[in-house]
């Protein structure tokens, strides 16, 4: 066993089974994992620990060596050997992050090669090792102050493992934190744009009878991302709220207000048994500011936030609510006073940047109000109508010009020769060319319907889970909806599915 040829043989055997039935494939993979674990603990693999040529990437001379494993087919063996090498290096150098692991060194290249190519099915069986590798890569990139190198890699690896990304894992949190460090905001969008609907650990408590094996095709990635799979570290409510908050911050940095407020609302609406966490309050503060930026007013909160929680938000985030109320009054001087008065609050909450943007957006929002009344007016008349522009006409004109150029206001400035009253500001009628509009509508429609489909699938899954959950069965007992005579499980399950379906979506209309 303890030779490279034995490993090659077992991997060839595995590849042979890859095309066979998934049950057989599953058994073979499990066998391989156990045997690898055994050889690892018995130090039978030590021969490979220091062989730098093993697992080598790209060098053409070694390409034809039979023992050169390919992550796409031998993800498990490759991962074990890679980990073995890293561990050996860690032990010899007495460092957690040996120099060889840092970006552009030997081991880093191997990690990159692996993460780009690994076989997503096989990795399901070695979740712990896979996650450790991801974490190591992240740490190495950070240690070299190059977090950006890891972001793309981890994102691709996540999408490779679980294209739907609907199950929350600790890797999500790791990635979003890394992206914030690296300021690589657009990089994480493919992950953020997927809707997280599940959390590991739900279904493994109630393994469905006759469920397909791990390597089979699953409807939901929840089947292989569980607490025991190791693909995610154990999670707490704090991880969850942090992820959504960080995600919201990424969108904020990209000025995607509506997505940002959705993420912040997710944090605000996290259910609680009573206490309110500071993360939720932070989210609320940012949410108020985003609302001002997006719509120019204080929006009503999502209906599912419990009133007592909302009261806590309001009492803690008082300066923000004052700011919003002043904003709605459309009085620049009072807004400035309000912002100045609570300047230390903004900087303590790290929201100074957002508040500055709120101030900038004030002119835009008041111009929108003007636009609904006037089709055209001179700049002088405009500054009489709104307090948000400088008194000086030339200054006001340049402010308006910059707003038009930035695209936040659709209007045109017209200089007329001989018109003594100065520059004319003209707002075009509200509608863009219909051709362009139709295309936009189509695009949006496609996006929303994709979302809807994804959500509908998740609802189906959740219904199933909740229908099987012990709380629900307990509830059914209590509410006596449980058919007292019939203990036929399947009938009850069907009923519950129907009930739950109504409840989750029922009160939206």
């Amino acid at each position, binding site marked *: 066993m303890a030779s490279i040829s034995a490993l090659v043989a077992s991997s060839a055997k595995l590849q042979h089974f890859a095309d066979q039935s998934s049950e057989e494939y599953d058994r073979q993979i499990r066998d391989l994992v156990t045997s690898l674990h055994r050889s690892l603990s018995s130090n039978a693999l030590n021969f490979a620990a220091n062989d730098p040529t093993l697992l080598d990437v790209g060098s053409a001379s070694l390409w034809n060596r039979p023992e050169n494993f390919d992550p796409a087919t031998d993800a498990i063996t490759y991962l074990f050997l890679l980990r073995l090498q890293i561990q050996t290096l860690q032990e010899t150098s007495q460092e957690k992050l040996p120099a060889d692991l840092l970006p552009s060194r030997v081991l880093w290249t191997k990690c990159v090669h692996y993460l780009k190519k690994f076989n997503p099915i096989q990795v399901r069986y070695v979740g712990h090792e896979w996650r450790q590798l991801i974490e190591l890569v992240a740490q190495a990139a950070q240690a070299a102050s190059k977090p950006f190198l890891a972001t793309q890699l981890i994102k691709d690896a996540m999408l490779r493992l679980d294209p739907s990304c609907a199950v929350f894992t600790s890797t999500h949190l790791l990635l979003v934190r890394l992206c914030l460090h690296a300021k690589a905001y657009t990089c994480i969008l493919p992950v953020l744009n997927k809707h*997280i*609907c*599940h*959390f590991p*650990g*739900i279904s493994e*408590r109630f393994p469905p009878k006759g469920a397909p094996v791990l390597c089979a095709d699953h409807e939901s990635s929840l089947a292989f991302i569980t*607490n025991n799979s190791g693909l995610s570290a154990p*999670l*707490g*409510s*704090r*991880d*969850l709220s942090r992820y959504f908050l960080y995600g919201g911050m990424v969108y904020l940095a990209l000025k995607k207000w509506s997505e940002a407020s*959705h993420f912040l*609302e*997710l944090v605000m*609406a*996290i*259910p*609680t*048994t*009573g*206490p309110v966490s500071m993360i939720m309050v932070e989210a609320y503060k940012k949410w108020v500011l985003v609302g001002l930026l997006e719509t120019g007013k204080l929006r009503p909160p*999502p209906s*599912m936030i419990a009133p007592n929680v909302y009261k806590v938000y309001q009492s803690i985030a008082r300066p923000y609510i004052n700011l919003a109320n002043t904003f709605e009054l459309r009085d620049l001087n009072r807004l400035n006073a309000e912002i100045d008065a609570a300047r230390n609050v903004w900087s303590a909450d790290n929201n100074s940047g957002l508040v500055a943007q709120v101030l900038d957006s004030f002119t835009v929002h008041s111009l929108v109000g003007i*636009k*609904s*009344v*006037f*089709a*055209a007016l*001179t700049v002088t008349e405009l500054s*009489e109508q709104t307090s948000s522009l400088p008194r000086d006409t030339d200054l006001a004109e340049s402010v308006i010009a910059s707003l038009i150029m930035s695209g936040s206001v659709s209007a045109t400035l*017209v200089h007329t020769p001989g018109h003594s009253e100065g520059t004319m500001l003209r707002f075009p*009628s*509200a*509608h863009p060319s*219909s051709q362009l*509009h139709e295309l936009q*509508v189509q695009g*949006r*429609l496609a996006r*929303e319907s994709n979302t*809807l489909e994804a*959500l509908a699938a*998740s*609802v189906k899954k*959740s219904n199933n*889970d*909740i229908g099987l*959950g012990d*709380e*629900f069965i307990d*509830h059914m007992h*209590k*509410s006596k909806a449980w058919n007292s005579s019939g203990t036929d499980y399947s009938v009850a399950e069907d009923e519950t599915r129907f009930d*739950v379906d109504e409840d*989750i979506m029922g009160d*939206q209309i």
Partner: protein
Amino acid sequence: MPDAFAPAQMGSSAAPPNLSSGTGPLGETLSPMPVKVDGRTRFNRLYLIGNTSTLLAVDALKSAVAEAKSGKDVGRYEKAVRALAEVAPGEQEAALDSAWVSDIQRSVRAQSERLEHELRGYKNNLIKESIRMGNEDLGNHYYETGDLVAAAKAYSRMRDYCTTPNHIASMLFKMINVSAERGDWIGVQSNVHRLRNSQSKPEDLLKNQPKILAALGLSQMHANSFRDAAASFLAVDSSLSDTFSEIVTPNDIAVYGGLCALASMDRQELQKQVLDNPSFRHFLELEPHIRRAIAFFCNSKFRPCLDILENYRTDYLLDINLQRHVPVLYTQIRTKAIHQYLVPFSRVTLDSMAAIFAPDVIGGEARPTGLNSPFVQELIRLIKEGVLNTRIDLEKGLLVSNQTDLRIEVQTKTLDSLSSFNKEAHLRIVRAAVLHAGLEIRDSDAEQGPRQSHQGTRRGPSGYRRAGGLVG
């Protein structure tokens, strides 16, 4: 005397009508009004004119004093004399006739005692009809002497002794009279409803219908629901004539009904329900200028219509029922006129609008359609209130109506609702999943680090309650 009328300054920007010449509408008001109005409202109307109009104060108050002296209400007499003494201390009537006052007071007291005594006698005899009449006499007496609270009480005591529907109807009408004079319009309304529900014979009900509708219309007008009021007034039958003159005259019905209809109905409704209404035509014939104004409005000739109303503004400001509502009614009529005027236009010059709706602005201001002219400010206010769906183009001096593309609007709306539905659905799914995975925030989170989710087996009773709440 440029501002002869104090009320004329109340929000009216139009030139005061030619009052001094004596041919104005007001000259007609004072002379016919006391002829047509009976009862206590006659004094009230005179007194109101005396207090609000400076030009007619002396005449009106003199008539008021005479009116009060012909009755038995000492309070009213004193009030009128005081008011007259302020305006014209030199007049002969401005001196209080104390002999008359004490004389009347004595006789009133005697009469009250006598009636109370008689009522007690009837009560001892337990004859229902006598008790009812005793209460009625007492109520009438209190009403005449100005003790309205006591009058209302006496009338309401009649209720238990009414034996026929006719009695009930007459009692309720007396209650309406008292309530109307007290300004208790809610009381008027409730009594009107009682009248409607009373079990009178159909022919009696038919006879009372005009009076009921007139009272209802009045109370609705005072409650600022002009559309309902218009409907009530318009339904009043011409058989009302002078039968209800202690509250309203047919002329009043025409004016109130016409103004309320103008303020609340569109052109088709005005044509159909007012001008082509055979029974209301009789009323309109009494006040032809209202008829003319409505006809002008229906033919989209807004300037003459508004001119007529402006000419009569002072007149209506002296009306006891209309006084409070004139500014509101006039603003509503004007707003509606502007709105109707804009219907056929996709763009219209501000100048042509100002010529119709603000002729005095044209002459008076340097830039009649500039931003600061009151007319443009009025338009801005209307646009902001959402009455007008237009925008102002100050460069070309145009009012441009907003073109709405229904297709785009529907598309945008649909997409917005879709995306908000998606968002909320996601929020709810996440919440359900969080609860199910046991990841909700608990007290212990404050002290401990991140919890491990597979502690789900240790969840407290609250976890069960929440999950139950979600699915149940």
